[in-house]
């Protein structure tokens, strides 16, 4: 069904909102340690694709496998219950465009919430790991601060640390720097580059071409709900196969 190294296997996903076909028959595989950057004009379905992977959005057709386990449909062939879906989602980390931190909890509590409440792991152990994650994203001194006191870049680094705290098999990033002031984008990309270097398995929807070019192991180029082109960044950015990809790259190169 899938090869051994495939962490994520997306097969024939389609999604329609009313009259609008947002995703048409999307298929791709992400192997362990890959950093896949999903590029494409806005409205091409990139975010919806990401949200279908962890079933925040329910796909109309197709299958998604995480390490060989079907997501969204259980062994009996029926749509998973909220509890079943929740269990699967613990293995898929997600980073949101607008950070989506929980404002009533401190930074440290944001990181500890799911490992303690969902995975029922001992608080002392989780705290230690959470502090290590905060150190990794450069925010050790913000552990006891509430999110409202953080800059956008700091919030997003907390968002990444929160996703990592669950030790997921794959990390999904939904335009993680699009809501940031330009001068704050760098600090977030730095963290993401580090994760890529460590060999985390990641799927990143982004408009940061520079990042995609030098951090991605593979580019997935989407347009109008379809995967138009896929390949290593060296080839995609230098000699794309399709005219649409060429135009897209040119538009971004022009600024």
């Amino acid at each position, binding site marked *: 069904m899938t090869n051994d190294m495939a962490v994520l296997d997306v097969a024939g996903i389609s999604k329609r909102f009313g009259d609008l076909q947002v995703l048409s028959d999307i298929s791709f595989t992400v192997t362990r340690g890959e950093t896949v950057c999903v590029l494409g004009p806005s409205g091409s379905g990139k975010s919806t694709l990401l949200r279908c992977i962890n079933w925040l959005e329910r796909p109309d057709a197709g299958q998604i496998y995480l390490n060989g386990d079907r997501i969204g449909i259980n062994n009996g062939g029926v749509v998973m219950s909220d509890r079943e879906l*929740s269990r699967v989602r613990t293995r898929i980390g997600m980073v*949101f465009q607008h950070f*989506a931190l*929980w404002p*009533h909890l401190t930074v440290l509590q944001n990181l500890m*919430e799911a490992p303690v409440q969902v995975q029922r792991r001992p608080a002392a152990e989780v705290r230690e790991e959470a502090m290590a994650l905060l150190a990794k994203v450069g925010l050790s001194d913000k552990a006891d601060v509430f999110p409202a006191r953080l800059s956008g870049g700091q919030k997003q680094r907390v968002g990444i640390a929160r996703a990592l705290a669950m030790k997921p098999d794959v990390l999904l990033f939904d335009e993680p720097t699009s809501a940031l002031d330009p001068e704050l984008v760098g600090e977030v990309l730095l963290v993401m580059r580090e994760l890529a270097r460590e060999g985390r398995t990641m799927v990143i929807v982004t408009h940061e071409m520079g990042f995609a070019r030098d951090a991605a192991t593979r580019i997935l180029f989407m347009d109008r709900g379809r995967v138009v082109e896929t390949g290593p960044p060296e080839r995609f950015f230098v000699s794309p196969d399709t005219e649409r990809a060429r135009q897209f790259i040119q538009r971004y190169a022009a600024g």
Partner: protein
Amino acid sequence: MSAADVLAILQGAVVTVTLSLIGILIGLPIGLGLALLRWANVPVIARVVAVYVSVLRATPLVTLLLLLFFALPNVGIAIGPVSAAILALVMNTSAFNCEVWRAALMNFPKEQYEAAQSVGMHASLRFRRIVLPQIVRVSLPGLVNEMSLLIKVTPVLAVVGVVDITRAAVRIGAETYEPLPPFLVAIAMYAPIVFALVSLQRFIERRQLAAEAA
């Protein structure tokens, strides 16, 4: 006006506070439950709740109370004045509370909810750990407002024979032919009750602010 009269009004105050507290404590969670049914858009039930809330918000409390007290026995349900009073208060306040809770739920940021889903929190965890603490804070002023209104409509309970602060004052005024002193005492008793409630709200809000400033 004698010391016994003041004592009588104080007894009325106990009745007012007790009935208000019971109404508040039962009406609060019922209001939240109704709001959740609407928020979750449970088929049919959500519509029924919407109609229930609209009807109750449009019904004067006295009318509702009289209906319960005089009509329920007619259909074979025996009900005393106190039970009728509590039932009327709960039905009335839960409808208003429902709308306060619902407004907070509707404004709850979707992305925060999805973030809770994405880390694998199931529905009841999401609600208890992420949604509830935040909507309580947002709803608090509206809920306290509704509670103080509830305390101040309790004099209508007298129509079925409940002797609250106001009813006690009326009686004393009628007996002594000096209505001014008992009514002044009555007014002086409502103030600290509502003040205590508002102080509790301030205390909770200050504690939250202090926690966040830390």
